[in-house]
């Protein structure tokens, strides 16, 4: 019983310590996602041309290796 209580307490402590960092990381990821979506919506041409160019390069490299 004491052992399980200790384990539970330790897990709770670790959770309490890590939770703010996880929340911060989630917020950062969310803001990055929002800004990326906004950028794509504001510059669709640039993004699509860049994506096609990137895919073309990857395809070239892949075909050369094969």
């Amino acid at each position, binding site marked *: 019983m004491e052992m399980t209580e200790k384990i539970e307490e330790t897990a709770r402590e670790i959770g309490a310590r890590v939770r703010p960092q996880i929340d911060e990381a989630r917020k950062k990821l969310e803001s990055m996602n929002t800004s990326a*979506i906004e950028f794509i*919506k504001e510059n*669709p041409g640039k993004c*699509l041309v860049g*994506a*096609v160019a*990137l*895919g*073309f390069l990857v395809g070239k490299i892949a075909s050369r*290796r094969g």
Partner: protein
Amino acid sequence: METRTDNPPNGRSAGDGTKKLGKRIEKVGHTAEHVWDRTRDSVSDIRDALDIPGRVERHPYGTVAAAVGIGYVLGGGLFSPLTASIVRLGVRIGLKLAVLPLLKQEMAELVETLEDEDGKGKGASKLNVKRTRGDEP
């Protein structure tokens, strides 16, 4: 006396040639204009059919991923080992996603049937005990 400019040797006046040339130029201009209009209409039709801004607005990441895919195919990466490995990974993940729920369901049904059988078995043994006790004098 007639001069050369008044009556050319081919029997035509200089004004006729100029008129014909003018008509031809006009015709070419009309044709070019017509071609330009049709091209513009076709381009606008294609643009409407693709609806790129709408697609980007609705699915920004999906559209970019599709563009990367188009570039990949154009780059000649379609029949390469990388494509084979990507397809293999996708199939494996898809199979896992499809098979796992089925396995879970089967396991749950198996556990249920086992529990039912166990309950029946216990009930039957209790009945047997009662019967044997009742038989005793």
